[in-house]
């Protein structure tokens, strides 16, 4: 059973932590490795690629990591963080273009069931599908 790690990158620490709370609420009592890299170190809005690379390393148990992010500098910090990682770790990381909240919820559910990295990334990517189906 794979243990894929998840990383949430946001400009805002409260936003990232609330998204994680919302996702964990789906599976009370189930452990999934979710690391947060969000906000500047003085508590403001922003992203930090060095913190992102540390979060990826912390979330990685060897089965891969799926990284979800909000917008703008979060995307570029994610890409920059890859440059800072060892080659071996970098190969196990997927940067997901999924919407942050919906993607994270889908990813947490399948990751907790032991799905592999590509399956977790695919589930994140289809995170908007239920909402799109409902709203037509």
């Amino acid at each position: 059973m794979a243990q894929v790690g998840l990383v949430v990158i946001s400009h805002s620490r409260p936003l990232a932590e609330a998204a994680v709370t919302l996702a964990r609420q789906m599976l009370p009592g189930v452990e999934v490795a979710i690391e947060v890299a969000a906000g500047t170190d003085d508590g403001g809005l922003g992203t930090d690629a060095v913190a992102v690379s540390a979060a990826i390393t912390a979330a990685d148990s060897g089965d891969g990591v799926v990284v979800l992010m909000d917008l703008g500098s979060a995307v570029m910090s994610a890409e920059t963080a890859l440059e800072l990682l060892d080659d071996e770790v970098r190969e196990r990381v997927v940067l997901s273009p999924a919407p942050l909240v919906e993607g994270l919820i889908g990813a947490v559910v399948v990751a907790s069931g032991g799905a592999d990295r590509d399956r977790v990334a695919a589930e994140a990517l289809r995170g908007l599908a239920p909402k799109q189906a409902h709203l037509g």
Partner: protein
Amino acid sequence: MADTAGLTAWVQEFARAVHEHRDELTELDSAIGDADHGSNMDRGMTAAVAALDATPPADPAALLKTVAMTMISKVGGTSGPLYGTLFLRMSGAIGDGSPAAFAAAFRAGVEGVVARGKAELGDKTMLDALLPAADALDAAVAAGRPLDAALEAAAAAAREGRDATVPLQARKGRASYLGERSVGHQDPGATSTVLLLEAAATTLSGS
């Protein structure tokens, strides 16, 4: 020479200029962005100068890498990864700090910004100042001009590129959400890029 002392002076002068123009950069960014370019760049460059003070680097490559990692970590906005990548790629190519090596390193840095930002000339970004500056620097160094004169030519090209962003419609970053409303405003990233080149022209010399 773009040696350790020269590059330190460059970084310090850029930090001073960013601090002096902090409000102007933020004002430009409030028109077409998220109003944080001045404060973000000031925080990043203040931290970069402090990092160089705390641990004086042994050589030009180490100096540029320290600046890169500090910008990547401390700026917070998109200019962190972009300026950070510029300095990081320069670090790998600075060599002996001769004018030719500096020009090659600057070109490598600009190519890093292109790869990171996936923007092109005319997208109303810092590249509208960086790309003409790299072209002018290469041409002047190839013609055998001393580094300070070559960098003054690069700064002049960057100023022209910055001014040319005013009528453009933004196609990248937060400003692109504004569409036609971004027309008529000078790009904040191109504006801070001019400060970077002007700081280089006043601190680096040699032939």
